C-alpha cells in the first residue's frame, strides 16, 4: 500500500440521477458477477466481464453526472493517477435495488478512501434517514477490452423501444438470437442450437424495415448470433435512459458492440461475443484461422495489475485462476476443432469457440492498450 494510501475520492449523485445509476448497476449485474471500479479526475468508470469472458460491459459516468466530484491524487504523484478496485456485484446491486424503487432518496454519495480499502455508499433519504453501505474492496486489477466499433462495416442506431418490442416475442428461456442484416431489412430470429430440437421448438422470425431505425448503415450483409440475456439488459437500460442504442457488428464470430450515451453525462459500451456456427465446415476453418492469428499477435494473456498490493494468498490464487482460464480457453480451441463445444467441470457451459473469439479482444493491463494506441 504505497502510493495509493493517500488516494481518495468522493462523488455525490443527485437524487434524480440515483435511479439511473441503479439501473446501470442492475444492467451490469446481468453481465458479470464482479464490478471493476476505476476513478479518475474525469469520472467513475464501471466495468464487468462475465465468467466465460464472452460479454464485457463498460459504463463511464462523467464528472458532470455528479453534483460533487472530487478526487485527491496521491501525494507521491505515482505513475497511476487513477484508482482501481473491484467489488462484488451482489451487495452493490442490493444497495440500489431498494433505493431504486422508492423516490425518497435525496442523494447518494460514493466515497473511496485508499487508506481504508473500502468503498462507501451513503444514501441520504427523506426524513433524515441515512443508509450507509461499506463494501470491501477485493484484489485489484485493471480490466480492459480491445474493441473499435468505428471499424465495423455495419452500424445501426435505433430507439430502444424497437428492440424491446422485438425481444418481447422471444421466450425467457431463449438463449441466443440471430440477427440477419441485409441492405433492405433486418431479420431477427431465435437461434436453435440443435436441429433435432426444431421439431419441438417454437421458431420465431421478425422482420424490421430499415426506415424504422434512426440510422441504418449495413455494408456487409450477413448474420450474427449472440446472447439474448445480455441484450435484454442493454435494451432495458436503454429504455430507462431513453437514449438510442447504436449497434456495431461485422460478421459471425466477430464481437457485436452496443453503445448508449448521454452527452457529457455517461456512456455505456457493451461487447458481446458472437457464435460461430461450427456445423458449416467452410466457416469453421476460416474462423479458426482467424483465431490463431489473433492469438499470435496479441499474446492473449490476462495480466493482473495489482495496484492495491494486498499481500494475501487470495490475490495469487485469483491470478492463477485467470491465467488458467485463459489457458483452458486455449486448450478448448484445440479440442474445439473436433467437438465444436465443450462442457467445463465447474458446470458452466460455454462454447469454446465463443470464448476464444472474445478472449482475443480482451486484454488486461493498460500498458498494452497504450502501445496499440501509441
Amino acid at each position, binding site marked *: 500500500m504505497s502510493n495509493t494510501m493517500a488516494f481518495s475520492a468522493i462523488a455525490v449523485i443527485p437524487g434524480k440521477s440515483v435511479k439511473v445509476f441503479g439501473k446501470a448497476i442492475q444492467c451490469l449485474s446481468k453481465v458479470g458477477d464482479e464490478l471493476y471500479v476505476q476513478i479518475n479526475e474525469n469520472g467513475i468508470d464501471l466495468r464487468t466481464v462475465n465468467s466465460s469472458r464472452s460479454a464485457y460491459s463498460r459504463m463511464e459516468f462523467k464528472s458532470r453526472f455528479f453534483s460533487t466530484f472530487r478526487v485527491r491524487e496521491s501525494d507521491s504523484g505515482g505513475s497511476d493517477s487513477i484508482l482501481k478496485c473491484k467489488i462484488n456485484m451482489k451487495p452493490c446491486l442490493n444497495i440500489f435495488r431498494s433505493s431504486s424503487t422508492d423516490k425518497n432518496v435525496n442523494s447518494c454519495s460514493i466515497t473511496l478512501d485508499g487508506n481504508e480499502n473500502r468503498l462507501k455508499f451513503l444514501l441520504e433519504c427523506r426524513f433524515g434517514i441515512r443508509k450507509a453501505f461499506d463494501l470491501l474492496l477485493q484484489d485489484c486489477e485493471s480490466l480492459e477490452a480491445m474493441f473499435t466499433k468505428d471499424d465495423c462495416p455495419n452500424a445501426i442506431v435505433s430507439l430502444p423501444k424497437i428492440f424491446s418490442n422485438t425481444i418481447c*416475442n422471444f421466450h425467457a428461456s431463449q438463449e441466443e438470437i440471430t440477427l440477419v442484416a441485409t441492405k433492405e431489412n433486418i431479420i431477427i430470429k431465435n437461434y436453435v442450437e440443435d*436441429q433435432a430440437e*426444431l*421439431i419441438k421448438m*417454437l421458431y*420465431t422470425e*421478425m422482420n424490421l*424495415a430499415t*426506415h*424504422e431505425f434512426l440510422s441504418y448503415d449495413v455494408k456487409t450483409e450477413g448474420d450474427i448470433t449472440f446472447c439474448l440475456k445480455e441484450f435484454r439488459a442493454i435494451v432495458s437500460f436503454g429504455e430507462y435512459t431513453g437514449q438510442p442504442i447504436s449497434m456495431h457488428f461485422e460478421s459471425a464470430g466477430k464481437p457485436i458492440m452496443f453503445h448508449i450515451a448521454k452527452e457529457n453525462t455517461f456512456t455505456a459500451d457493451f461487447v458481446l461475443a458472437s457464435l460461430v456456427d461450427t456445423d458449416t465446415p467452410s466457416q469453421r476453418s476460416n474462423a479458426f484461422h482467424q483465431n490463431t492469428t489473433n492469438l499470435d499477435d496479441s499474446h492473449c494473456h490476462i495480466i493482473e495489475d495489482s495496484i492495491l498490493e494486498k499481500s494475501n494468498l487470495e490475490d495469487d490464487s485469483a491470478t492463477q485462476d485467470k491465467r488458467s482460464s485463459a489457458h483452458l480457453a486455449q486448450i478448448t480451441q484445440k479440442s474445439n476443432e473436433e467437438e465444436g463445444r465443450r462442457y467445463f467441470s465447474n458446470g458452466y457451459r460455454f462454447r469454446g469457440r465463443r470464448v476464444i473469439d472474445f478472449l482475443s479482444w480482451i486484454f488486461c493491463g493498460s500498458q498494452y492498450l497504450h502501445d496499440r494506441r501509441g
Partner: protein
Amino acid sequence: MRFKAKLLDINCMQQLTRVGASMSRMTKNCVLCLAPKKVVFVSNERISEGGTRIWCEIQQETLFDDYRIEGKDNSNRIFLELITDNFARALKSIQFGVVSVKIRLTKKYTPCLTIEIVTAYGNSNRIITHDVPVVIVPQRDWYEYEEPDMPQFDVSIYMPQMKVLKQVIDRMKNLSEHLVITADQKGNMTLKTQNDIVTVETHFKDLGNPVWANDAANNRKEASTQIGAMEACIYIKKLAQLLQGQQINPSKIICNLLAEKAIHIYLVSEDVILQYYIPAAM
C-alpha cells in the same frame, strides 16, 4: 392437405389467444382438429396419468374472416398434434396495433402451423412469423380424437360461478387429494374433502338443473329422478387444473355426474364450448 385462415378482428384474435392460453394451462400436448365448420382442441390423457379428456370447440365462422381447408376424405378434416405452450406463446405476440393474423399449414424442416402476425407501428407494418411445429395425425388414428359421446349421466346440474368454485377448490386442494362431489336433481351440490383431522364440506343450493334436448335426456337413467343425491370421487388436482388460469369466461358451467364413475363438465360461453371429462379416482 391445405389450410389457411385469417383473422382481422381484434376481439376474435384475443378470443383465440385466450383459448390457446387456457389449453396450455390444462395440458402439455393437444391435437388440433381443423374441420370445415369448426376448430377443436382435443386432449386425451392416458388412463395411467388420470385419464382426463378435453374437448374445446370453436365455431369457425365466429372467429375467422377467411377460412380455407382442404383435408382428407369426405369429412375434409386435418388433425395436428402440437405442444400447447408453443401455440400459446406464438399468439402472445398479438398486441396493441395488430392488423391481421394469418394461420397457415406449411411444410418447412417439419410440418408447421405458421402464424403470421402483422402489427402496425406508426406508418409501417411489422411482421412477426412464428412456426409452431406440428405432427400430422394419420387418418387411422383419427378415431381417438372424435367428440366424446354424451355419457349416460345420473345427475345434471349447473355449477356455481367460476370465481366461487375456484376459491373453494384452491383451498380444498391443500387438504387432500380427493374431492367428493355430491349432487341431486333439485339443485343441490356439495363439494367435500377430508383428511385425518378435518372434513370440509361446501354446500350449494338452488343451482338449477339444465334441461337437455330429447335425445340426451333419454340417456339419463330413469331411476335418477327418484333417487336423491349421487356422488363421485375425483382427484381434486384435475379439477383445479381446469380452473387455474382459465381464460374462457363461461356464461354457464354444467356438471354431469356419473355416479361413482366420472364427472363431465361443460364450460359454455358465447362461441366456445369446453368439455372436460374427469374419471373417478380409483
